[in-house]
């Protein structure tokens, strides 16, 4: 099948002699939510970073919305306007207010007027209940609030695809749910998303497809009911049972 909204085909990526991705292929349809699960170091983050060209791949190809990203040199800045990514460590700009964080890229990269960008930022901040934090600096916000601002910062560019890279892994447990709720809201408006996560219950709930990565290989993929209910691979079973015994499933 080759008509996916995002097609990752036979991608290889190494850092020095560390082979992180080995012949990885992945299809994501429009409005689909795909969750990547697997141990730390299995290649989830690297795969996400390759898709918006923060990393260059060694071999293979990636197409997004009909454009081949890896064949001829694409305009990376234009491309990244359409692909939002949110990181585990939020990475808000600490010298800017929440409002400035959210409006920087729409103004400077998309060339929106200040008024236009701020109106949209206020609308998004209002939707996540952080309108009153617009003039605060990030270090005055809780981790959950910072991460929600980081999601809104990416959404302000009106991306066609969102990549979420373990966005709840750095959060205190009681802050996780407010971030996951925001992601749930995104699935309801049909946002196409690829989500690397350790939150198995959440993955089971929102994903159309689960991919289990192990040592740089997508070992097993399928609908949540199959991966969680009837995993075929021994490694998948071992991973899930260790997650289960850690109380995360």
């Amino acid at each position, binding site marked *: 099948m080759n008509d996916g909204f995002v097609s990752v085909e036979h991608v290889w990526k190494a850092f020095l002699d560390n082979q992180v991705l080995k012949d990885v292929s992945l299809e994501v349809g429009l409005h689909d939510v795909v969750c990547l699960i697997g141990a730390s170091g299995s290649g989830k983050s690297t795969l996400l970073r390759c898709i918006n060209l*923060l990393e260059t791949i060694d071999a293979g190809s990636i197409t997004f919305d009909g454009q081949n990203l890896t064949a001829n040199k694409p305009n*990376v800045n*234009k491309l990244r306007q359409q692909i939002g990514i949110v990181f585990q460590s939020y990475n808000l700009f600490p*010298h800017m207010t929440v409002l400035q964080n959210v409006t920087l890229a729409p103004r400077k*990269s998309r060339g929106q007027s200040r008024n236009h960008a701020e109106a949209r930022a206020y609308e998004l901040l209002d939707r996540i209940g952080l309108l009153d934090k617009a003039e605060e600096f990030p270090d005055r916000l809780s981790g959950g609030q910072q991460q929600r601002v980081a999601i809104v910062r990416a959404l302000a560019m009106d991306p066609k695809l969102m990549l979420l890279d373990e966005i709840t892994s750095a959060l205190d447990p009681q802050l996780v749910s407010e971030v996951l709720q925001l992601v749930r809201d995104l699935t309801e408006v049909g946002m196409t998303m690829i989500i690397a996560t350790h939150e198995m219950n959440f993955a089971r709930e929102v994903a159309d497809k689960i991919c289990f990565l192990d040592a740089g290989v997508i070992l097993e993929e399928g609908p949540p009911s199959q991966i969680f209910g009837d995993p075929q691979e021994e490694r998948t079973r071992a991973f899930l049972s260790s997650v289960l015994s850690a109380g995360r499933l």
Partner: protein
Amino acid sequence: MQRILDLFFSPHDLRDVLPDVWLGFQTNIHMMIVAEILVLIFALGIAVIRGLPGRAAIPLRALAIFYVDFFRGTPLIIVALVIGVGVPSADAGWISGRSAATYGIASLTIIYSAYVAEVYRAGIESIHPSQRMAARSLGLSYAQTMRYVVLPQAIRRVIPPLLNDFIGLQKDTAIVYIIGIGEAVLAAQNYSTAYTNFTGYTLAAIFFVLLTIPLARFTDNLIRQREARERAAA
């Protein structure tokens, strides 16, 4: 003992030499302010060039590295002599006809830009790569990422060490007296030659100390505030 007091701390000579030294010291202040502004701009340019990515920028990067290596290693007094005495003798038109103070400012700017470029570079490198990654992932270009995300944070971080270099620059405005700039030290020297009395030097030293103390305290304060803020954030 009385002899020493008379030679270095004579109230009578102090009164006589004060107007000349004060007049000269205003030239020091003038050179210091202009040179510091030029250094802030010029050094930032060198630091940014040195950090440019990619193969195409190799010659530019090499030039910036050479500049820093060369002028950080060259004594100010040599640069001052080459520019302050050499350039006027070269009969090179407009550039040879500038005032001695201008050559002094040029010498200070050339040397101190090499130091301050390294201070800026340390600041730029101290910004975590995840900040650049976040900015680039939003579609900002390399230049926009530097302009809006990296440099504002880097410059804030290096203000204390930068001010420290400026204290050095303020004092070094005295060294360029060697090319005949009518500044405080030259005024003191003229007086000591004429009257065999060194009170003028003492006076000039006091002026320099009085000028650097406020900047030193200001720098201390900035550092203290930053530490307090970082403790509060941790």
